[in-house]
């Protein structure tokens, strides 16, 4: 079905109550350059049309014109909040294609870094979501803690946002004991601070009124729209790539997949909050069982992939990312396809926003945790 992007109202039809409203492209509530054309009846939404592509950078085409290592920094720039998961997916895909080995120590460090990145992403979401709902304090609280994670990650990766730390066959540099201790210290302090988050928001009555039974996604729809990540789990479907198709040694760690049956904004909120705690658990286990040894296996300097195709799935903070590479042999891939989680997650927004109050639509959009450059890629 081809729905018109421009509102279909003519001037004579526009009344006091019926009008079209442009949400975005530069609206703070859309968290990026997403434009949603809302057809309104007073405060209620009749129809919502997301308009995508403002940040389209031809990521797939760029990757096809680059050698495998050259594409590394580009992949990480799709999802700027969960860059390490993207980094991980790309190296895993190429490692699978070329059958490179990865030392166990490197795998453990990858898990630690990726989980730290997941927590920082969830923290920013937490702050931004509550900012959408009108609370400013949570944002500052979350950023204070997130900043400490960024400091920790900066120490090993050298960057604060668009990390590019993993390499084919392992890592470019090892971490030292002091860094691991620093991570453990952070976990301890963060555990002490987590109850504050719940005091501030989770038990708050206003928050409950804004999020409970708002934007309910039924499990049937969640599966049908191809949602993934905390949104899918917030609708009662237990699926997490880390658990069900373990990669990078996630099967060695003991963690739970939080699921909430309600499917509303509060359900998604609860899932993410519980996920933060699970990530802390994973990091602790990874650090306590970290093996000694090299962090990079022998890989050729000039990477020539054999003919073939691979698909690798990774659980990013926003859901399931699949990278599919077709190689005809040689230094560059023939075809690259990114299946990004936010794109699928956004697709249900039009259905959910229908009949909602405008303020609730923003709450729903916030609870979906969009990263728009990832949608547009």
């Amino acid at each position, binding site marked *: 079905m081809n729905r018109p992007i421009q509102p279909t109202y003519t001037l004579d039809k526009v009344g006091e109550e019926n009008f079209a409203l442009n949400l975005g492209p530069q609206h703070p509530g859309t968290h990026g350059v997403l434009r949603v054309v809302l057809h309104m009846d007073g405060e209620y939404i009749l129809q919502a049309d997301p308009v995508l592509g403002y940040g389209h950078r031809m990521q797939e085409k760029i990757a096809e014109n680059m050698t495998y290592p050259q594409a590394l920094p580009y992949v990480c720039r799709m999802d700027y909040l969960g860059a390490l998961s993207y980094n991980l997916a790309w190296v895993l895909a190429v490692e699978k294609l070329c059958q490179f080995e990865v030392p166990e120590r490197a795998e453990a460090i990858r898990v630690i870094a990726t989980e730290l990145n997941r927590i920082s992403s969830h923290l920013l979401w937490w702050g931004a979501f509550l900012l959408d709902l009108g609370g400013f*304090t949570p944002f500052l609280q979350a950023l*204070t803690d997130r*900043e400490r994670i960024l400091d920790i990650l*900066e120490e090993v990766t*050298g960057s604060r946002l668009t990390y590019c730390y993993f390499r084919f066959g392992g890592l*470019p540099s090892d971490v030292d004991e002091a860094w691991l201790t620093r991570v453990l210290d952070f976990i301890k302090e963060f555990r002490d601070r987590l109850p504050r988050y719940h005091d*501030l928001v989770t038990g708050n*009555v206003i928050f409950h009124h804004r999020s409970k039974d708002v934007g309910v996604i039924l499990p049937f729809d969640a599966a049908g729209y191809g949602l993934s990540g905390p949104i899918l789990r917030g609708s009662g479907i237990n699926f997490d790539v880390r658990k069900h198709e373990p990669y990078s040694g996630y099967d060695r760690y003991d963690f739970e997949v939080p699921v909430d049956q309600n499917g509303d904004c509060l359900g998604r909120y609860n899932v993410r909050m519980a996920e933060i705690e699970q990530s802390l658990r994973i990091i602790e286990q990874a650090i306590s069982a970290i093996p000694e040894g090299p962090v990079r296996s022998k890989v050729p300097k000039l990477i020539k992939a054999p003919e073939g195709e691979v698909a690798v799935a990774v659980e990013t903070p926003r859901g399931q990312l699949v990278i599919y590479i077709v190689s005809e042999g040689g230094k560059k891939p023939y075809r690259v396809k990114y299946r990004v989680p936010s794109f699928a997650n956004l697709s249900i927004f039009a259905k959910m926003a229908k009949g909602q109050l405008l303020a609730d639509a923003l709450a729903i959009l916030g609870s979906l945790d969009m990263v728009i450059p990832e949608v547009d890629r």
Partner: protein
Amino acid sequence: MMECCYIKEVVKGFFSLCTGMRVTMGNVFTRPATVQWPRESAPLPDRFRGHIMMLADDATGYPKCIACTSCARNCPSQCIIVTGKKPEGAKKKMADRFELDFTKCSLCGLCVEICPVGALDFSRDYALASYTRNDFTTMDLLQELGSPF
């Protein structure tokens, strides 16, 4: 009955607000989480990535680069221009021109990693500002080093 529920809600709401306010007020007496730049600055980690810079040979003070161009070929954004020639009497080539287009650089570090002689490294320069764009489109990395040419 209805009214009783309503009052309950109000009381519950009041208490949840108080809990939240307690967290907020608790922060009034903590140390500030920010630093007052430019009077103070946050510590830079060792692996901080500023723009890339050329390292000098300890013995001669000339650039270490042997102008093999692998950094230029491997850079995803094609932002390095390097040429070189042999100084008189020397066996190896040496860079006589090394320009970085910092506006395109993504600070990925592939050039630093690929360099066979370890001639490149990240600088610790982060407070970069200029009135003209040209200062960054053609950054001459050899400027501060000695030259045999």
